[in-house]
């Protein structure tokens, strides 16, 4: 499948704008001082800059663009470890709702006035059953127990470890074969914050006790929408991981140029040079892989669920970009040496984000298993 892996001029401009805003409003000392979700930053990004609704049609109050533009934003958010629930709300929830054509809610999300989160554990991979991918063209029902059941438009159950649900106004809750919307402040909904490895993307344990809910999809379409939403999340997370890895590479290069030991910049030591060369090789590949996945998805129709090629591209993106982001963040800590190990240096923010992201939507291993089924490399 042919996809333009380069950035268009419009995409370049979008990137410059987002980068400039984040540099001014959200430099890393700000994140370090308070890594909790930043509502003011969200307003700026989502509402004022209009980036929450980038992928929502204009008639629903969105930007009428698509996932390619979302990806630009995610790359920049990865570069800055910005504490905003963009991936959760503007990508996963938005794409799931797009797939359900749930217009009323999309309108609320498009202008950034409300935020939504899909209520699944952070490590839920695309393909509802977890490990096994869907066969071509089919989208299995929401199996494998998300822990919530519906009874007469009321939800009851528990879902642990949900990302970015702390600040969500709307909760998209899958049950065994349906998809529901719950107001986060409704009676019967309780959110218990989790001390999270990545403080910029905190987890919440959610409990529903006969919480009133609105059903937006059921059966096969619900399965397809969930599959699509999670697939989009996995792919856009890869964009974020690429952005994060790229920042770590640049930071490491800076360190190698400016840190002197033994009378010369440590970047003149060949062992370190070769390590960064290898790191650049990896980051460059991460770019190609994440751009490809975004491109494949951007051309598709959400309501049909992900095509086989989209599933391949998503699995590939997560199998490849997650570990690279972790490796780059680890390299960054190591190359900064003692300083990189301190709380005062930003490297750990990236390390924690990368390590958490590598588990989000399923670890690399699960995506490789998914690929095996998709490309006819059967297990032993």
């Amino acid at each position: 499948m042919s996809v333009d892996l380069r950035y268009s001029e419009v995409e370049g401009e979008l990137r410059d704008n987002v980068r400039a805003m984040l540099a001014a409003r959200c430099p890393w000392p700000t994140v370090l001082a308070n890594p909790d979700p930043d509502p003011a930053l969200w307003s700026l990004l989502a509402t004022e800059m209009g980036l929450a609704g980038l992928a929502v049609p204009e008639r629903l109050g969105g930007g009428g663009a698509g996932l390619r533009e979302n990806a630009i934003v995610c790359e920049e958010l990865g570069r800055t470890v910005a504490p905003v629930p963009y991936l959760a709300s503007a990508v996963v929830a938005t794409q799931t709702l797009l797939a359900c054509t749930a217009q009323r809610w999309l309108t609320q999300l498009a202008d950034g006035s409300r935020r939504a989160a899909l209520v699944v554990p952070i490590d839920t991979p695309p393909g509802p059953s977890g490990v096994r991918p869907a066969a071509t063209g089919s989208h299995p029902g929401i199996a494998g127990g998300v822990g919530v059941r519906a009874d007469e438009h009321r939800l009851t159950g528990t879902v642990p470890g949900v990302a970015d649900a702390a600040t969500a106004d709307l909760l998209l809750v899958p049950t065994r074969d349906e998809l529901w919307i719950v107001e986060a402040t409704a009676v019967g909904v309780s959110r218990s914050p989790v001390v999270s490895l990545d403080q910029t993307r905190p987890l919440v344990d959610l409990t529903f006790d006969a919480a009133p809910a609105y059903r937006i999809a059921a059966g096969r379409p619900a399965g397809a929408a969930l599959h699509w939403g999670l697939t989009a999340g996995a792919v856009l997370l890869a964009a974020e991981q690429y952005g994060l890895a790229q920042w770590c590479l640049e930071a490491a290069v800076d360190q190698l140029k400016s840190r002197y030991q033994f009378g010369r910049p440590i970047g003149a030591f060949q062992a370190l040079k070769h390590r960064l060369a290898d790191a650049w090789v990896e980051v460059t590949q991460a770019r190609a892989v994440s751009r490809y996945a975004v491109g494949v998805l951007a051309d598709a129709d959400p309501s049909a669920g992900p095509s086989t090629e989209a599933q391949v591209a998503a699995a590939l993106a997560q199998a490849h970009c997650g570990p690279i982001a972790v490796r780059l963040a680890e390299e960054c800590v190591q190359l900064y040496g003692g300083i990189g190990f301190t709380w005062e240096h930003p490297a750990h923010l990236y390390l924690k984000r990368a390590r958490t992201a590598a588990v989000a939507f399923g670890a690399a291993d699960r995506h490789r298993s998914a690929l095996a089924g998709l490309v006819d490399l059967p297990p032993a």
Partner: protein
Amino acid sequence: MWEDRLSSLVAEFLAGHDPEVIDRTQFLRARFDAGLAWVHYPVGLGGLDALRELQPLVNEAFAAAGAPDNSPHRNGIGLGMAAPTILRYGTPALRKRLLRPLWTGEEIWCQLFSEPGAGSDLAGVATRAVREPDGGDGADADGGNTAHAASWIINGQKVWTSLAHQARWGLLLVRTDPDLPKHQGLSYFVCDMTAPGVEVRPLRQLTGEAEFNEVFLTDVRLSDELRLGEVGQGWQVARTTLMNERITIGGRPMPREGGMIGVLAEAWRHRPDRRTPGLHDELLRLWVRAEAVRLTGMLVRQQLAAGDPGPEGSVVKLAYATLTQAASSLELELLGADGLRYDDWSLRRPDRVDMLGRTPGYRYLRARGNSIEGGTSEILRNIIAERVLGLPAEPRADRHTAWKDLPR
């Protein structure tokens, strides 16, 4: 406009030269003379001073008509590296003499750069060229164009010379002044491979066969007219050659499961009896890496097509080597005892090298070369670190010392 003009030129040419009738060489010569060989070359040298991007159009038109091509795979060094170097540095007489038979494939080219003592450090070549007594002082670095009638006497040894045994000409990098620092004392010649004193010996590889040659140069006399660039300008000329080598890398589009990963995937599919969960995971990791390299190649080609090459080509070279080595190794693990059967250890000179052919053992052994040939992975990493990432060069002692005084 150009497109239309070219289409009609091709049509016109074909009308006058029926490929079914005309002899292959005659046809190619005529195509060259019509400026339809490489349209971006100057008029009179096989081109029309057109844009490079238009060439595929012409090639496709000829292919569609069933015309013979110039078998570009048979003369890769000539077409890819010699031609642009000759175009840039050759005298009008040399261009006229060399480019047509080069393009038509009548004359095959080889590259006489590497030496046993100058591999990664190519600028350290020791093969000596001394100006013949009657022609002036060979050590005169700024002798330049002043002594036309002179000849040079060449002595030395070159290695890793593909096609030397078939080549009519070689691109030769030699040392003309050992008293200068190494980059400054080099000159560049077109070597007549039929000249007395040129001896080509097959160089056997660990696979048993000999793709390459050693070339021994003993008192080889070359006319000064065969020089490309000024005396002492050899390194600059060589860089032109090498830059054109790099451009050709990563240029071919690759389908999913192209290359060694496809061989491995097929072995997996056909040998369910040999599968284990551990090998499955390794296979999938390599498959993912192969896709990453393939997609990076796609990016490189898109950038090239847009006239914005970028440094990503080196990713493909570096990662593809590692990947092919790992995949060929895993094939052996997968096949167990069956993978240990070789076909033939006898010294052969293959007509064409298929790195993915023969046996799993051959593939494994041949892949070892991927990280050595065409620039070692170590040198590539240095280039990336310094030119792409802008990291400082290491301290170097060899830039300003006379070549003859360098330790070796």
